[in-house]
């Protein structure tokens, strides 16, 4: 097999490999367990799965049990008027609830029974907070009542009594919602095999508390009012946008006669907040109207007030309704701006309501509907495809939230100057230039020659034996290329070249001679292809080898290291003198 054929055979796989590498160099990740596992319809590859150890017995159920166990003692503490302990329990309850909510998010179970449980316990916490506050206020009112009774303050008594009635209704409302929540929690807890006794006890305690506060146990004080204000509302329940009419009469009792009060201002309040006002007519009658707007769904207390006179409390029930949100998006202009317009309806337009325009699920722009329920907003979008939706959250309204159908918008922003990514280009060119510069420096640096190593200038001849004057054994000189073949002794030749070409050239001449002798002795073909050090290393088992190695070391210093000073010259000549006799003068 000729060398050429061997090289050709080698070239084929080499070129094949280079070609294969070039083919895959665009996607250098050839194999990765995470990316390469094929989708088996039968099982997952555990090696490619991330470890996430979860145990319902250790991680989930204990939290659920804790949440249920806290509610019983909480209600009991409120009933026993130990508000401080109730507050501490509520704090712990809140912490546990937050932990559980985080777990639900981590387990990605936001639409499950577990999430429902989490929401119910969160609502339970809010209800218990409300209960604690209302209960504390009720206690305060009872104290005030005693005080006013002792003072004979009839107006104060009336006001306290009215507020007390309101609070009791509110607590009853809280109880109704708490009961509903508690039932959901108990059902889920029983499904999970948890102990629901504490939860059931909390409901019983709450029920007992409500009956306690509503029982007519205490003395009912009926003040002898001199002024009476009546109120009746129609209808007693409604939905968003419904018109509610309140009417009544303001009378003053004087002896056995009732006299109507005319021209007196009357205010209607919902949940102690005044909403509308009117005045009595000559017969003392009044009418107040209002439209159900930004009020939450549920039970609300209404009363009419004129001066220090208040009517009895009437209840208005607001029923929640569904809403629909429509959205239309204009085509994007040159700058990527789109006009989003739409309408929020809940049976009728929802006016002055906040609407959120959400694009790509993470960016939110807020706007308001006008009196007709219409909204509009301008949104600036970057290049690319985006989804936009309008969302009405219904917070504070007796309207269920709704979201429009997401609209897909494609934005292409064409600028006059072509959008060349300047920064990435600059960075890429910079990095490549840096490394290219590094490559150039790597190629340009000389091997093994430090910059500070400047050859010393030739010093004047020092006293000492001059080897040029010493007789050296006659050696036959191998003919150099293009040179006549004189029988010039080595020493003379060395001296001649030293004078004309310097120490470096002279040393080379000597080395060539010595190397030739060594090569002949060791039968090394083409010894000129070897470096001095390689030739020195090839020299083994001959008595002159150590001396030759020393000679080579000195020669390299002179020839390649640039050491041309007198000490270096002397050292070289010494070595030359020591080496040549070992090689003998025999020809082969």
């Amino acid at each position: 097999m000729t060398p050429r054929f061997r090289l050709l055979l080698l070239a084929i796989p080499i070129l094949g490999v280079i070609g294969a590498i070039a083919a895959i160099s665009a996607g250098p990740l050839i194999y990765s367990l995470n990316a390469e596992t094929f989708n088996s319809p039968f099982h997952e590859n555990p090696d490619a799965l991330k470890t996430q150890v979860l145990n319902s017995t250790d991680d989930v159920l204990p939290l659920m049990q804790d949440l249920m166990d806290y509610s019983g003692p909480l209600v009991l503490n409120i009933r026993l008027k130990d508000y401080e302990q109730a507050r501490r329990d509520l704090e712990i309850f809140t912490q546990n609830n937050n932990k559980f909510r985080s777990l639900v998010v981590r387990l990605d179970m936001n639409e499950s029974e577990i999430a429902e449980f989490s929401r119910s316990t969160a609502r339970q916490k809010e209800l218990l907070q409300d209960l604690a506050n209302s209960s504390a206020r009720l206690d305060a009112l009872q104290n005030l009542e005693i005080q006013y009774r002792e003072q004979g303050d009839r107006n104060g008594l009336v006001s306290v009594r009215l507020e007390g009635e309101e609070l009791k209704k509110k607590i009853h409302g809280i109880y109704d919602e708490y009961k509903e929540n508690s039932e959901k929690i108990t059902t889920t807890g029983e499904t999970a095999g948890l102990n629901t006794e504490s939860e059931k006890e909390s409901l019983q305690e709450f029920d007992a508390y409500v009956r306690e506060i509503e029982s007519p146990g205490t003395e009912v004080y009926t003040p002898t009012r001199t002024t009476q204000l009546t109120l009746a509302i129609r209808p007693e329940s409604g939905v968003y946008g419904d018109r509610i009419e309140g009417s009544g009469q303001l009378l003053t009792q004087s002896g056995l006669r009732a006299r109507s009060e005319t021209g007196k201002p009357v205010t209607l309040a919902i949940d102690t907040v005044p909403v509308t006002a009117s005045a009595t007519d000559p017969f003392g009658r009044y009418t107040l109207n209002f439209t159900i707007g930004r009020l939450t769904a549920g039970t609300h207390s209404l009363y009419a007030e004129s001066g220090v006179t208040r009517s009895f409390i009437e209840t208005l029930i607001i029923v929640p309704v569904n809403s629909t949100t429509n959205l239309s998006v204009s085509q994007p202009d040159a700058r990527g701006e789109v006009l989003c317009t739409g309408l929020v309806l809940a049976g009728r337009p929802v006016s002055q309501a906040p609407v959120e325009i959400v694009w790509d699920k993470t960016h939110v722009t807020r706007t308001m509907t006008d009196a007709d329920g219409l909204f509009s907003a301008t949104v600036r979008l970057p290049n690319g495809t985006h989804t936009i939706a309008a969302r009405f959250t219904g917070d504070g309204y007796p309207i269920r939230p709704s979201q429009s159908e997401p609209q897909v918008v494609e934005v292409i922003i064409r600028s006059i100057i072509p959008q060349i990514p300047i920064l990435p280009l600059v960075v890429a060119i910079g990095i490549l230039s840096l490394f290219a510069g590094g490559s150039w420096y790597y190629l340009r640096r000389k091997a093994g020659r430090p910059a500070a190593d400047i050859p010393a200038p030739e010093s004047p001849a020092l006293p000492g034996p001059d080897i040029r004057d010493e007789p050296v054994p006659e050696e036959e000189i191998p003919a150099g290329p293009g040179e006549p073949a004189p029988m010039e002794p080595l020493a003379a030749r060395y001296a001649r070249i030293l004078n004309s070409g310097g120490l470096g050239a002279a040393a080379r001449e000597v080395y060539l001679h010595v190397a030739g002798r060594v090569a002949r002795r060791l039968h090394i073909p083409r010894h000129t292809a070897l470096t001095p050090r390689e030739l020195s290393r090839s020299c083994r088992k001959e008595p002159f080898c150590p001396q030759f190695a020393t000679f080579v070391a000195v020669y390299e210093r002179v020839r390649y290291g640039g050491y041309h000073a007198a000490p270096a010259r002397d050292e070289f000549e010494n070595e030359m003198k020591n080496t040549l006799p070992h090689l003998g003068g025999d020809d082969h």
Partner: protein
Amino acid sequence: MRKKVLAAIVLFIWLMVVGSFMLLASRIDLEIFFVLWLIGLLVIVELMDTRFSLPGYLRYIKYLVAAGIVIFGGIVAQKVLEILAK
């Protein structure tokens, strides 16, 4: 053993070790393999390099190393651009 033969054997062993680790980790990435090859080659060339002379087998390998450094620069630039794009 001659230096260049020893160098080739050491480079071969080094690449076998790198390849084995890639197989064990189930992740065969050409970029990582190239960078480790370049590091191995740089170390070997620096160790082989002679102080005062330039042997024939080292003369052209330095161009290969220089080309490797430029390609490495290209890989670094690509990675930086990926990070910037994020």
